[in-house]
Protein backbone atom coordinates (compact mmCIF):
# COMPACT_ATOMS: atom_id res chain seq x y z
CA UNK A 1 0.00 0.00 0.00
CA UNK A 2 1.36 3.41 -0.95
CA UNK A 3 2.11 5.57 2.09
CA UNK A 4 0.15 8.79 2.47
CA UNK A 5 3.31 10.64 3.49
CA UNK A 6 6.86 9.54 3.03
CA UNK A 7 10.08 11.20 4.19
CA UNK A 8 13.39 10.10 2.77
CA UNK A 9 16.63 11.16 4.41
CA UNK A 10 15.07 14.46 5.43
CA UNK A 11 17.11 17.10 7.20
CA UNK A 12 16.41 20.67 8.17
CA UNK A 13 18.76 23.42 9.31
CA UNK A 14 18.77 27.18 9.39
CA UNK A 15 22.52 27.41 9.97
CA UNK A 16 24.72 25.08 7.89
CA UNK A 17 26.39 22.47 10.06
CA UNK A 18 23.78 22.76 12.81
CA UNK A 19 20.89 20.52 11.77
CA UNK A 20 17.69 20.57 13.78
CA UNK A 21 16.69 17.21 12.33
CA UNK A 22 18.71 14.94 10.09
CA UNK A 23 18.48 11.64 8.24
CA UNK A 24 14.76 11.17 8.88
CA UNK A 25 13.13 8.23 7.07
CA UNK A 26 9.45 7.77 7.71
CA UNK A 27 6.35 6.42 5.99
CA UNK A 28 2.82 6.81 7.29
CA UNK A 29 -0.11 4.78 6.00
CA UNK A 30 -3.86 5.28 6.14
CA UNK A 31 -5.42 4.71 9.56
CA UNK A 32 -2.09 4.54 11.42
CA UNK A 33 -1.35 6.45 14.58
CA UNK A 34 2.32 7.34 14.90
CA UNK A 35 3.36 8.87 18.19
CA UNK A 36 6.68 10.68 18.33
CA UNK A 37 8.21 11.33 21.70
CA UNK A 38 11.06 13.68 22.38
CA UNK A 39 12.24 16.28 24.84
CA UNK A 40 12.17 20.03 24.36
CA UNK A 41 14.33 21.14 21.44
CA UNK A 42 14.55 17.65 19.98
CA UNK A 43 13.11 18.80 16.63
CA UNK A 44 9.53 17.54 16.95
CA UNK A 45 7.92 20.77 15.79
CA UNK A 46 10.33 21.15 12.87
CA UNK A 47 9.59 17.59 11.76
CA UNK A 48 5.83 18.04 12.00
CA UNK A 49 5.96 21.33 10.10
CA UNK A 50 7.77 19.63 7.23
CA UNK A 51 5.22 16.81 7.23
CA UNK A 52 2.41 19.39 7.17
CA UNK A 53 4.04 21.14 4.19
CA UNK A 54 5.20 24.22 6.08
CA UNK A 55 8.65 25.00 4.76
CA UNK A 56 10.97 22.83 2.73
CA UNK A 57 13.55 20.36 3.94
CA UNK A 58 17.20 21.42 3.65
CA UNK A 59 17.99 17.85 2.58
CA UNK A 60 15.98 14.85 1.43
CA UNK A 61 12.44 14.61 0.14
CA UNK A 62 8.96 14.83 1.65
CA UNK A 63 6.47 13.01 -0.58
CA UNK A 64 2.71 13.07 -0.35
CA UNK A 65 0.39 10.71 -2.19
CA UNK A 66 -1.65 12.61 -4.81
CA UNK A 67 -4.70 14.40 -3.40
CA UNK A 68 -3.77 13.85 0.24
CA UNK A 69 -5.38 16.37 2.61
CA UNK A 70 -3.39 17.35 5.67
CA UNK A 71 -4.74 18.88 8.87
CA UNK A 72 -2.26 20.53 11.22
CA UNK A 73 -2.62 21.64 14.82
CA UNK A 74 0.42 23.43 16.25
CA UNK A 75 1.42 23.24 19.88
CA UNK A 76 1.07 26.95 20.56
CA UNK A 77 -2.30 28.16 19.41
CA UNK A 78 -2.47 31.95 19.54
CA UNK A 79 -5.94 33.01 20.56
CA UNK A 80 -7.40 35.45 18.09
CA UNK A 81 -10.26 37.85 18.65
CA UNK A 82 -12.61 35.64 16.65
CA UNK A 83 -15.49 33.51 17.82
CA UNK A 84 -14.82 29.82 17.16
CA UNK A 85 -17.44 29.52 14.38
CA UNK A 86 -16.20 32.72 12.78
CA UNK A 87 -12.59 31.54 12.84
CA UNK A 88 -13.51 28.19 11.30
CA UNK A 89 -15.62 29.90 8.64
CA UNK A 90 -12.63 32.04 7.61
CA UNK A 91 -10.36 29.00 7.37
CA UNK A 92 -13.00 27.13 5.38
CA UNK A 93 -13.21 29.99 2.90
CA UNK A 94 -9.41 29.90 2.60
CA UNK A 95 -9.86 26.19 1.74
CA UNK A 96 -12.50 27.29 -0.79
CA UNK A 97 -15.15 25.09 0.82
CA UNK A 98 -18.64 25.76 -0.57
CA UNK A 99 -20.69 27.88 1.86
CA UNK A 100 -23.40 25.31 2.57
CA UNK A 101 -20.92 22.49 3.16
CA UNK A 102 -18.81 24.75 5.35
CA UNK A 103 -21.75 25.75 7.53
CA UNK A 104 -22.81 22.13 7.90
CA UNK A 105 -19.29 21.01 8.81
CA UNK A 106 -18.89 23.76 11.41
CA UNK A 107 -22.19 22.78 13.08
CA UNK A 108 -21.09 19.14 13.01
CA UNK A 109 -17.77 19.97 14.65
CA UNK A 110 -19.35 22.22 17.26
CA UNK A 111 -21.57 19.28 18.25
CA UNK A 112 -18.78 16.71 18.13
CA UNK A 113 -16.47 18.81 20.29
CA UNK A 114 -19.33 19.85 22.55
CA UNK A 115 -18.48 23.51 22.10
CA UNK A 116 -21.08 25.88 23.45
CA UNK A 117 -21.64 29.15 21.56
CA UNK A 118 -19.19 31.45 23.27
CA UNK A 119 -17.36 34.75 22.92
CA UNK A 120 -13.98 35.34 21.31
CA UNK A 121 -11.30 32.65 21.52
CA UNK A 122 -9.15 35.07 23.55
CA UNK A 123 -11.42 34.33 26.52
CA UNK A 124 -11.24 30.54 26.18
CA UNK A 125 -9.53 28.23 28.64
CA UNK A 126 -6.53 26.30 27.35
CA UNK A 127 -8.66 23.19 26.90
CA UNK A 128 -11.33 25.06 24.95
CA UNK A 129 -8.72 26.78 22.78
CA UNK A 130 -7.10 23.42 22.11
CA UNK A 131 -10.46 22.10 20.95
CA UNK A 132 -10.69 24.96 18.44
CA UNK A 133 -7.15 24.15 17.36
CA UNK A 134 -8.17 20.55 16.71
CA UNK A 135 -11.42 21.62 15.02
CA UNK A 136 -9.57 23.73 12.47
CA UNK A 137 -7.26 20.80 11.75
CA UNK A 138 -10.20 18.51 10.89
CA UNK A 139 -12.31 21.16 9.18
CA UNK A 140 -11.81 19.31 5.92
CA UNK A 141 -11.69 15.61 6.78
CA UNK A 142 -7.92 15.07 6.69
CA UNK A 143 -6.18 12.00 5.33
CA UNK A 144 -3.29 12.86 7.62
CA UNK A 145 -3.73 14.67 10.92
CA UNK A 146 -0.54 16.24 12.24
CA UNK A 147 -0.72 17.24 15.90
CA UNK A 148 2.05 18.94 17.84
CA UNK A 149 1.76 18.13 21.56
CA UNK A 150 -2.06 18.30 21.55
CA UNK A 151 -2.35 17.08 25.15
CA UNK A 152 0.34 19.28 26.64
CA UNK A 153 -0.80 21.35 29.61
CA UNK A 154 -4.32 19.92 29.65
CA UNK A 155 -5.88 18.39 32.75
CA UNK A 156 -6.64 14.64 32.82
CA UNK A 157 -10.30 15.11 31.86
CA UNK A 158 -9.49 17.30 28.86
CA UNK A 159 -6.74 14.86 27.80
CA UNK A 160 -9.17 11.94 27.92
CA UNK A 161 -11.74 13.88 25.91
CA UNK A 162 -9.25 14.91 23.24
CA UNK A 163 -7.88 11.37 23.02
CA UNK A 164 -11.43 10.11 22.49
CA UNK A 165 -11.82 12.58 19.61
CA UNK A 166 -8.50 11.57 18.05
CA UNK A 167 -9.51 7.94 18.10
CA UNK A 168 -12.80 8.86 16.43
CA UNK A 169 -10.85 10.46 13.57
CA UNK A 170 -8.68 7.41 13.32
CA UNK A 171 -11.75 5.22 13.01
CA UNK A 172 -12.82 7.43 10.09
CA UNK A 173 -9.57 6.47 8.35
CA UNK A 174 -7.29 9.40 9.09
CA UNK A 175 -3.63 8.70 9.75
CA UNK A 176 -2.48 10.58 12.83
CA UNK A 177 1.02 11.78 13.58
CA UNK A 178 1.19 13.11 17.09
CA UNK A 179 4.03 14.34 19.30
CA UNK A 180 4.37 14.54 23.04
CA UNK A 181 6.95 14.46 25.79
CA UNK A 182 5.01 13.19 28.79
CA UNK A 183 5.83 9.72 30.20
CA UNK A 184 3.28 7.21 28.99
CA UNK A 185 2.21 9.52 26.22
CA UNK A 186 0.01 7.80 23.59
CA UNK A 187 0.62 4.38 25.10
CA UNK A 188 -2.39 2.20 24.51
CA UNK A 189 -3.68 4.01 21.46
CA UNK A 190 -0.72 4.62 19.14
CA UNK A 191 0.17 1.91 16.60
CA UNK A 192 3.75 3.04 16.34
CA UNK A 193 6.01 4.84 18.74
CA UNK A 194 9.13 6.69 17.62
CA UNK A 195 11.68 8.68 19.57
CA UNK A 196 13.32 11.87 18.46
CA UNK A 197 16.53 12.99 20.07
CA UNK A 198 19.17 15.38 18.81
CA UNK A 199 17.30 15.58 15.56
CA UNK A 200 17.35 11.85 14.80
CA UNK A 201 14.32 9.60 14.67
CA UNK A 202 14.45 6.14 16.15
CA UNK A 203 11.56 3.79 15.69
CA UNK A 204 12.52 0.70 17.67
CA UNK A 205 9.55 -1.52 17.06
CA UNK A 206 6.06 -1.57 15.71
CA UNK A 207 3.85 -1.65 18.79
CA UNK A 208 1.31 -3.82 17.01
CA UNK A 209 3.89 -6.63 16.90
CA UNK A 210 5.57 -5.91 20.18
CA UNK A 211 6.08 -9.15 22.08
CA UNK A 212 5.46 -9.61 25.78
CA UNK A 213 9.13 -10.46 26.30
CA UNK A 214 10.04 -7.00 25.13
CA UNK A 215 7.42 -5.14 27.08
CA UNK A 216 10.08 -2.96 28.63
CA UNK A 217 11.58 -1.82 25.33
CA UNK A 218 9.95 1.59 25.41
CA UNK A 219 10.98 2.20 28.99
CA UNK A 220 14.53 1.08 28.19
CA UNK A 221 14.76 3.42 25.21
CA UNK A 222 13.38 6.29 27.25
CA UNK A 223 16.00 5.55 29.83
CA UNK A 224 18.80 5.33 27.24
CA UNK A 225 17.72 8.52 25.51
CA UNK A 226 17.11 10.37 28.69
CA UNK A 227 13.49 11.22 28.01
CA UNK A 228 10.26 10.53 29.81
Amino acid sequence: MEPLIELRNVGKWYTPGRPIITGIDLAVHRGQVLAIRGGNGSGKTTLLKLIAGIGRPSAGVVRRAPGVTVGYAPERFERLRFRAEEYLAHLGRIRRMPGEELGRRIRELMDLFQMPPAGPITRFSKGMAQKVNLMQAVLVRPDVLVLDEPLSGLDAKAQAELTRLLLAFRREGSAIIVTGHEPGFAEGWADRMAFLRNGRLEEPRNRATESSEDADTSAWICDQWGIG
Partner: protein
Amino acid sequence: MNAGLVWYLVYGYLRSYRYFPPLLVFLIGLMLLYANRPNPVMESYAASSVLVYFVSAWIGAGFHGAVGDAQEHIAAVHAGSVRAYLAGKTLAVFACGLVLDLAALVYPVAAGSFDAPVRAGEWLTALLAHIELSALGGALGLLLSHPIVQKGTHATAALLLVLILSIVRDGILAEIGEGFAPLFVLLPPAATLVDGMMNPDMATGMRSAAVWAWPLAYGGALCWLYARLAERKM
Protein backbone atom coordinates in the same frame (compact mmCIF):
# COMPACT_ATOMS: atom_id res chain seq x y z
CA MET B 1 -5.75 34.89 -5.77
CA ASN B 2 -7.21 33.48 -2.56
CA ALA B 3 -9.74 36.20 -1.66
CA GLY B 4 -10.78 34.28 1.47
CA LEU B 5 -7.21 34.38 2.74
CA VAL B 6 -6.79 38.09 1.99
CA TRP B 7 -10.04 38.92 3.76
CA TYR B 8 -9.16 36.71 6.75
CA LEU B 9 -5.80 38.46 7.15
CA VAL B 10 -7.27 41.95 6.79
CA TYR B 11 -10.05 41.05 9.22
CA GLY B 12 -7.56 39.55 11.69
CA TYR B 13 -5.46 42.70 11.46
CA LEU B 14 -8.48 44.88 12.14
CA ARG B 15 -9.57 42.70 15.06
CA SER B 16 -6.09 42.97 16.60
CA TYR B 17 -6.48 46.78 16.84
CA ARG B 18 -2.95 47.11 15.50
CA TYR B 19 -4.40 49.26 12.77
CA PHE B 20 -5.34 51.98 15.24
CA PRO B 21 -1.97 53.83 15.68
CA PRO B 22 -1.14 54.01 11.93
CA LEU B 23 -4.72 54.94 11.08
CA LEU B 24 -4.72 57.70 13.68
CA VAL B 25 -1.43 59.10 12.38
CA PHE B 26 -2.79 58.93 8.82
CA LEU B 27 -5.99 60.78 9.68
CA ILE B 28 -4.22 63.43 11.73
CA GLY B 29 -1.62 63.85 8.97
CA LEU B 30 -4.30 64.23 6.35
CA MET B 31 -6.21 66.79 8.39
CA LEU B 32 -3.06 68.79 9.13
CA LEU B 33 -2.14 68.70 5.45
CA TYR B 34 -5.45 70.27 4.51
CA ALA B 35 -5.88 72.45 7.59
CA ASN B 36 -5.39 75.58 5.51
CA ARG B 37 -7.32 76.24 2.31
CA PRO B 38 -7.08 76.45 -0.60
CA ASN B 39 -4.27 74.08 -1.58
CA PRO B 40 -2.55 73.37 -4.89
CA VAL B 41 -3.69 70.02 -6.27
CA MET B 42 -0.56 68.11 -7.24
CA GLU B 43 1.70 69.46 -4.48
CA SER B 44 -0.91 68.40 -1.93
CA TYR B 45 -1.27 64.97 -3.50
CA ALA B 46 2.51 64.61 -3.50
CA ALA B 47 2.53 65.26 0.25
CA SER B 48 -0.33 62.83 0.91
CA SER B 49 1.42 60.17 -1.15
CA VAL B 50 4.45 60.43 1.15
CA LEU B 51 2.10 60.07 4.12
CA VAL B 52 0.56 56.98 2.53
CA TYR B 53 4.07 55.58 1.89
CA PHE B 54 5.03 55.81 5.57
CA VAL B 55 1.71 54.61 6.97
CA SER B 56 1.57 51.64 4.56
CA ALA B 57 5.05 50.62 5.70
CA TRP B 58 3.82 50.79 9.29
CA ILE B 59 0.86 48.58 8.43
CA GLY B 60 3.09 46.09 6.59
CA ALA B 61 5.45 45.92 9.57
CA GLY B 62 2.57 45.34 11.99
CA PHE B 63 0.86 42.62 10.02
CA HIS B 64 2.85 39.67 11.32
CA GLY B 65 2.15 40.40 14.96
CA ALA B 66 -1.58 40.55 14.33
CA VAL B 67 -1.81 36.77 14.20
CA GLY B 68 1.49 35.18 15.30
CA ASP B 69 3.63 32.31 14.07
CA ALA B 70 1.33 29.38 14.79
CA GLN B 71 -1.69 31.03 13.19
CA GLU B 72 0.45 31.79 10.14
CA HIS B 73 1.35 28.10 9.92
CA ILE B 74 -2.29 27.08 10.21
CA ALA B 75 -3.34 29.54 7.52
CA ALA B 76 -0.52 28.33 5.25
CA VAL B 77 -1.72 24.72 5.56
CA HIS B 78 -5.30 25.77 4.73
CA ALA B 79 -4.08 27.94 1.83
CA GLY B 80 -2.27 24.94 0.38
CA SER B 81 1.29 26.20 0.59
CA VAL B 82 3.53 28.70 2.30
CA ARG B 83 3.92 30.59 -0.97
CA ALA B 84 0.16 30.93 -1.40
CA TYR B 85 -0.05 32.21 2.16
CA LEU B 86 2.72 34.77 1.67
CA ALA B 87 1.13 35.98 -1.57
CA GLY B 88 -2.16 36.43 0.30
CA LYS B 89 -0.43 38.29 3.10
CA THR B 90 1.27 40.65 0.64
CA LEU B 91 -2.05 41.31 -1.10
CA ALA B 92 -3.72 41.94 2.26
CA VAL B 93 -1.14 44.63 3.06
CA PHE B 94 -1.65 46.14 -0.40
CA ALA B 95 -5.43 46.11 0.14
CA CYS B 96 -5.02 48.12 3.35
CA GLY B 97 -2.77 50.54 1.46
CA LEU B 98 -5.39 50.89 -1.26
CA VAL B 99 -7.96 52.02 1.29
CA LEU B 100 -5.52 54.71 2.44
CA ASP B 101 -4.89 55.71 -1.20
CA LEU B 102 -8.57 56.23 -1.87
CA ALA B 103 -9.08 58.15 1.36
CA ALA B 104 -6.10 60.40 0.57
CA LEU B 105 -7.44 61.08 -2.92
CA VAL B 106 -11.11 61.60 -2.09
CA TYR B 107 -10.88 63.48 1.21
CA PRO B 108 -9.52 66.81 -0.14
CA VAL B 109 -11.99 66.76 -3.03
CA ALA B 110 -14.93 66.03 -0.71
CA ALA B 111 -13.75 68.66 1.76
CA GLY B 112 -13.28 71.26 -1.02
CA SER B 113 -9.64 71.80 -0.02
CA PHE B 114 -8.19 72.48 -3.47
CA ASP B 115 -7.75 75.78 -5.23
CA ALA B 116 -9.01 74.35 -8.53
CA PRO B 117 -11.04 71.39 -9.74
CA VAL B 118 -9.00 68.21 -10.13
CA ARG B 119 -8.57 67.31 -13.80
CA ALA B 120 -8.88 63.69 -14.93
CA GLY B 121 -5.17 63.53 -15.83
CA GLU B 122 -4.17 64.85 -12.41
CA TRP B 123 -6.43 62.38 -10.70
CA LEU B 124 -5.03 59.46 -12.65
CA THR B 125 -1.45 60.57 -12.01
CA ALA B 126 -2.14 60.98 -8.30
CA LEU B 127 -3.95 57.63 -8.12
CA LEU B 128 -1.08 55.81 -9.78
CA ALA B 129 1.51 57.48 -7.56
CA HIS B 130 -0.45 56.74 -4.38
CA ILE B 131 -0.94 53.10 -5.34
CA GLU B 132 2.72 52.65 -6.22
CA LEU B 133 3.96 54.38 -3.08
CA SER B 134 1.60 52.50 -0.76
CA ALA B 135 2.64 49.21 -2.37
CA LEU B 136 6.33 50.13 -2.04
CA GLY B 137 5.82 51.11 1.59
CA GLY B 138 3.82 47.98 2.38
CA ALA B 139 6.42 45.72 0.77
CA LEU B 140 9.20 47.48 2.69
CA GLY B 141 7.24 47.07 5.92
CA LEU B 142 6.85 43.36 5.32
CA LEU B 143 10.50 42.94 4.44
CA LEU B 144 11.96 44.99 7.27
CA SER B 145 10.06 43.49 10.17
CA HIS B 146 9.83 40.31 12.23
CA PRO B 147 10.42 37.49 11.36
CA ILE B 148 12.71 38.57 8.49
CA VAL B 149 14.61 40.83 10.90
CA GLN B 150 14.90 39.07 14.24
CA LYS B 151 15.13 42.05 16.58
CA GLY B 152 12.16 44.39 16.60
CA THR B 153 14.28 47.46 17.38
CA HIS B 154 16.66 46.72 14.50
CA ALA B 155 13.71 46.23 12.17
CA THR B 156 12.10 49.53 13.14
CA ALA B 157 15.36 51.43 12.84
CA ALA B 158 16.14 49.91 9.44
CA LEU B 159 12.64 50.58 8.14
CA LEU B 160 12.61 54.22 9.27
CA LEU B 161 16.08 54.80 7.85
CA VAL B 162 15.17 53.38 4.45
CA LEU B 163 11.86 55.26 4.33
CA ILE B 164 13.40 58.61 5.25
CA LEU B 165 16.47 58.26 3.04
CA SER B 166 14.36 57.24 0.07
CA ILE B 167 12.32 60.42 0.38
CA VAL B 168 15.10 62.93 1.18
CA ARG B 169 17.67 61.33 -1.14
CA ASP B 170 17.76 64.27 -3.58
CA GLY B 171 18.14 66.82 -0.76
CA ILE B 172 21.08 64.89 0.71
CA LEU B 173 22.73 64.56 -2.71
CA ALA B 174 22.34 68.29 -3.27
CA GLU B 175 24.28 68.85 -0.05
CA ILE B 176 27.00 66.23 -0.39
CA GLY B 177 27.30 66.18 -4.17
CA GLU B 178 25.93 64.01 -6.97
CA GLY B 179 29.12 61.95 -6.87
CA PHE B 180 27.65 60.07 -3.93
CA ALA B 181 24.58 59.05 -5.95
CA PRO B 182 25.74 55.39 -6.35
CA LEU B 183 25.47 55.03 -2.57
CA PHE B 184 21.74 55.65 -2.84
CA VAL B 185 21.07 53.65 -5.95
CA LEU B 186 19.49 50.69 -4.11
CA LEU B 187 17.00 52.83 -2.20
CA PRO B 188 13.32 52.55 -3.16
CA PRO B 189 12.46 55.05 -5.93
CA ALA B 190 9.94 56.91 -3.79
CA ALA B 191 11.42 60.38 -4.38
CA THR B 192 11.34 59.80 -8.15
CA LEU B 193 7.63 59.08 -7.96
CA VAL B 194 6.93 62.17 -5.88
CA ASP B 195 8.96 64.27 -8.35
CA GLY B 196 7.12 62.70 -11.25
CA MET B 197 3.82 63.67 -9.66
CA MET B 198 4.83 67.25 -8.99
CA ASN B 199 6.47 67.77 -12.38
CA PRO B 200 4.52 65.64 -14.84
CA ASP B 201 5.59 67.86 -17.77
CA MET B 202 9.27 67.24 -17.13
CA ALA B 203 8.86 63.50 -17.36
CA THR B 204 8.03 62.71 -20.95
CA GLY B 205 8.49 59.74 -23.25
CA MET B 206 10.88 57.08 -22.05
CA ARG B 207 11.74 59.01 -18.91
CA SER B 208 8.06 59.13 -17.99
CA ALA B 209 7.73 55.38 -18.53
CA ALA B 210 10.78 54.82 -16.33
CA VAL B 211 9.39 57.05 -13.56
CA TRP B 212 6.23 54.93 -13.32
CA ALA B 213 7.58 51.51 -14.28
CA TRP B 214 10.73 51.43 -12.18
CA PRO B 215 8.85 51.55 -8.82
CA LEU B 216 6.66 48.69 -10.04
CA ALA B 217 9.70 46.61 -10.92
CA TYR B 218 11.36 47.59 -7.63
CA GLY B 219 8.22 46.70 -5.65
CA GLY B 220 8.01 43.37 -7.49
CA ALA B 221 11.61 42.63 -6.55
CA LEU B 222 10.87 43.50 -2.90
CA CYS B 223 7.89 41.14 -2.87
CA TRP B 224 9.96 38.35 -4.42
CA LEU B 225 12.73 38.88 -1.87
CA TYR B 226 10.20 38.94 0.97
CA ALA B 227 8.62 35.67 -0.22
CA ARG B 228 12.02 33.99 -0.45
CA LEU B 229 13.18 35.08 2.99
CA ALA B 230 9.85 34.58 4.74
CA GLU B 231 9.48 31.08 3.28
CA ARG B 232 12.82 30.15 4.82
CA LYS B 233 11.79 31.55 8.19
CA MET B 234 8.49 29.66 8.37
